[in-house]
């Protein structure tokens, strides 16, 4: 079973200097699976995602991608192997055009997956904005371009950090509707999300983080609200 | 470092040792006129002048986050002001020196107005341009020797003493007085409310500005603070050399290049750093004096290495051993 996993994390801890942000995380994603990571502010969700691409503090333990250890490899190399992040706050290059932003994704990736044409067929709203500076786009459009930058890198594992943050519900619906389509193409997807209900609706499995540890994991239907709430907030 | 069960009131031995050295150095500096000859006193004067300038450059770079490549402008202004007062207006040297400091401060006012329009790294080169302007203008003032410079009149020398030793002692004591006032003043400044603001800038600029520390005003104030001391050093150096000239009085190599190396090697952002750096500088100068350009290459190489390995210089290495500041500037609760 283990060899079928796309990503296999075992006993990962992450540190910012002396501060331990994550403790002994065990985690896995299979191809064609959407996994949600939920948890309160400061639980370590973003740190976890960024640690997977070696872009947060220093991590120990094991992170295997397609069975190969990638912990400690450079961000550029990990991305080139097929893991790409849609960062929190979109983080486009505002003075670069939409095309240029997308093209950068293509350049850092494996160049064997989604093409620009396919991307524009998924997000037709962006096709008319290709020559615009990304900074001139609305928040929702920027999030779509951030998606595109990640998808054009041909990832097999897509990491989505707080993609609903600050966006109108209709736009968020549109973005979330895309996730199952990507799953059907065989991508593994990890979503970090504040909006638990939305995350659990789309996810096949979830992990709940509490103070840097996994406090609960399973399928969304397996647990009661109270269970999840307890894992989310800790024992109060 | 030590696990000895010291009683709570006692200090670690290295701190006591460090403070003993500082006190011994001050005692040596004060008693030097009775212990040594004119040559040693001239060297001592140079040491104190360079130490004062290093302290001021460090105050800017290490505490106020201002990197200046043009502080030699105030040395030159002080030297020329001193010449104007002592030679042209026959003011007594002892009075002309503090006046030269005040003139340097007045010169700093428009400078601040111009260079602080440039931000961060640009300010560094901007101050250099202003220093070039001062030097070029100094070389065109009638009555000050124009481009080649001029000597101070003998009467100015005579006012400092009858014999060479007397003169060396008087000039040395002036340099010592300026150095002590500069050190005590800067130490008190760092321990004041403004000093705490400065250290807040040094340690975390964003936090400092969110705490309402007025960054610009504090920085301007520090820049102005350095000018009179640099001006007085310029005046004392002119008095010692009995000469002013645009290239020497506004010497970039002597008053900016060497000073930067001193502070970087000794340790930016501490009061101990400039002292250590100046001692190391004089030792290296003594050891490598026959090697000319290699001396500068070594200083450049060492300071690059310091920035790569330990940006807080030799003092940071020593401090790890000593465990606390030898010259304390922060109001910390006494250690257990």
């Amino acid at each position, binding site marked *: 079973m283990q060899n079928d996993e796309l990503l296999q994390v075992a006993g990962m801890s992450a540190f910012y200097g002396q501060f331990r942000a994550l403790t002994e995380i065990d985690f896995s994603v299979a191809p064609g699976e959407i996994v949600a990571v939920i948890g309160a502010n400061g639980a370590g969700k973003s740190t976890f995602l*960024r640690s997977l*691409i070696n*872009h947060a503090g220093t991590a120990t333990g094991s992170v295997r991608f397609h069975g190969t250890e990638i912990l400690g490899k*450079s*961000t*550029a190399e*990990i*991305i*080139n192997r097929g893991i*790409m*992040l849609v*960062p929190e706050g979109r*983080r486009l*290059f505002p*003075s*670069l055009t939409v095309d*240029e932003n997308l*093209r*950068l*994704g293509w*350049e*850092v*990736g494996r160049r064997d997956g989604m093409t620009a044409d396919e991307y524009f067929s998924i997000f037709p709203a962006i096709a008319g904005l290709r020559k615009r500076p990304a900074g001139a786009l609305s928040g929702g459009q920027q999030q779509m371009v951030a998606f595109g*930058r*990640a998808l054009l*890198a041909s990832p097999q594992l897509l990491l989505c950090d707080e993609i609903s943050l600050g966006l109108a519900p209709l736009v968020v619906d549109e973005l979330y509707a895309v996730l199952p389509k990507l799953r059907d193409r065989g991508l593994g997807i990890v979503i970090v999300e504040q909006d638990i209900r939305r995350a659990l609706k789309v996810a096949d499995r979830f992990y709940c983080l509490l103070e840097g540890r996994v406090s609960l994991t399973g399928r969304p239907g397996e647990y009661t609200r109270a269970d999840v709430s307890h894992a989310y907030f800790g024992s109060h | 470092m030590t696990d000895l069960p010291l009683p709570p009131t006692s200090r670690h031995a290295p701190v006591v040792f460090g403070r003993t050295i500082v006190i011994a150095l001050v005692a040596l500096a004060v008693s030097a006129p009775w212990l040594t000859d004119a040559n040693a006193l001239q060297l001592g004067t140079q040491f104190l002048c360079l130490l004062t300038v290093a302290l001021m450059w460090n105050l800017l770079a290490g505490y106020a*986050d201002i*990197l200046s490549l043009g502080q030699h402008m105030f040395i030159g202004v002080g030297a020329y002001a001193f010449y104007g007062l002592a030679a042209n207006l026959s003011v007594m040297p002892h009075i002309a020196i503090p006046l030269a400091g005040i003139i340097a401060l007045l010169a700093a006012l428009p400078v601040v*107005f*111009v260079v602080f*329009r*440039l931000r*961060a*790294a*640009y300010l*560094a*080169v*901007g101050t*250099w*341009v*202003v220093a*070039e*302007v001062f030097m*070029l203008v100094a070389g*065109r003032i009638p009555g000050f020797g124009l481009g080649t410079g001029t000597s101070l009149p003998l009467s100015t020398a005579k006012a400092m003493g009858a014999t060479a030793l007397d003169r060396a002692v008087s000039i040395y004591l002036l340099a010592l007085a300026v150095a002590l006032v500069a050190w005590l003043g800067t130490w008190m400044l760092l321990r004041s409310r403004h000093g705490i603001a400065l250290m807040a800038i040094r340690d975390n600029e964003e936090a400092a500005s969110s705490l309402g520390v007025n960054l610009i005003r504090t920085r301007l104030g520090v820049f102005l603070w350095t000018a009179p001391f640099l001006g007085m050093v310029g005046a004392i150096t002119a008095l010692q050399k009995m000469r002013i000239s645009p290239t020497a009085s506004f010497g*970039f190599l002597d008053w900016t290049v060497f000073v*930067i190396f001193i502070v*970087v090697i000794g340790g*930016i952002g501490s009061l101990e750093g400039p002292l250590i750096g100046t001692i190391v500088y004089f030792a290296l100068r003594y050891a490598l004096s026959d090697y000319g*350009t*290699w001396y*500068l*290459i070594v200083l*450049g*190489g060492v*300071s*690059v290495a310091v*920035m*790569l390995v330990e*940006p807080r210089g030799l003092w940071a290495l020593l401090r790890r051993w000593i465990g606390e500041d030898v010259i304390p500037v922060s109001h910390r609760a006494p250690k257990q």
Partner: protein
Amino acid sequence: MSEFYINVVLQGVLLGGLYALFAIGLALSVGIVRLVNIAHGDLIILASYVLVVLTQSFGLPLWLSFLILVPLMAGFGYVLQQGLLRHVTDKGMLPPLLVTFGLSVIIQNGLLEGFGADTRSFSGGALQTSTWQLAEGIYVGALPALTLLVAVVLIFAIDRLIYGSHFGARLRAVSEAPATAALVGLRVNRVHALALALVGATTAVAALFMGLRMNFDPLSGPGRLIIAFEVIVLGGLGNLWGILAGAILLGVAQSVAGAIDVRLQVLAGHLVFLLIILLRPQGLFQRS
């Protein structure tokens, strides 16, 4: 009389071509790597001495020496970033300034040690002596005119590279948001090193034309740095065509002042610079 001043202004404009060549590399360092490289002028002087070695010690013709110099300096820029500057690029304001400051002193004194303090220049044959008459009493030298032309072509080429190529998009991305660039998988250090290779190549061009037009010695670097710095601040940081305008302004100011009193030439350039940052600290060609 008016012809005299037309000539003076024209010479200033052409001098601006040389100053633009000094400044292009610094503008790229500042714009892409966010590095105010105190050793920029010394890199130009270093390149000039490499030309001295190639032409005089190896006896190669100047044009061939220059063709060798360009990749040499580009490689030097690349290695400088990857081997040294990379370690201080994101460490705040002081470390990059102080490391390049130390580098500047090392280059100057290394050149003094190797070549002595004598001034040097290159011999460009007829190019240096021929002049064209544009109108009655109005002349331009062939070399100054060629210098300005090369500056214009170089700025145009770099402008197209930065704003019209995929590599340029990468440079802009790294310049604009280095942390984001790293987060999405760009090799920021490598892009910085390639930018410094580009800077190195421009110093080769600057070195050639400087050595043809004026004398230099091992300590000439700081003077070139200050001119380059004044040009990029006047032109507005991050504006390539502003470089040309800033350089011409500085050249004309120096040329006109020099015609009045030759000792005023350098001072006038600095004063124009200070006056303009006082009035328009964002530079002449940048909106505030």
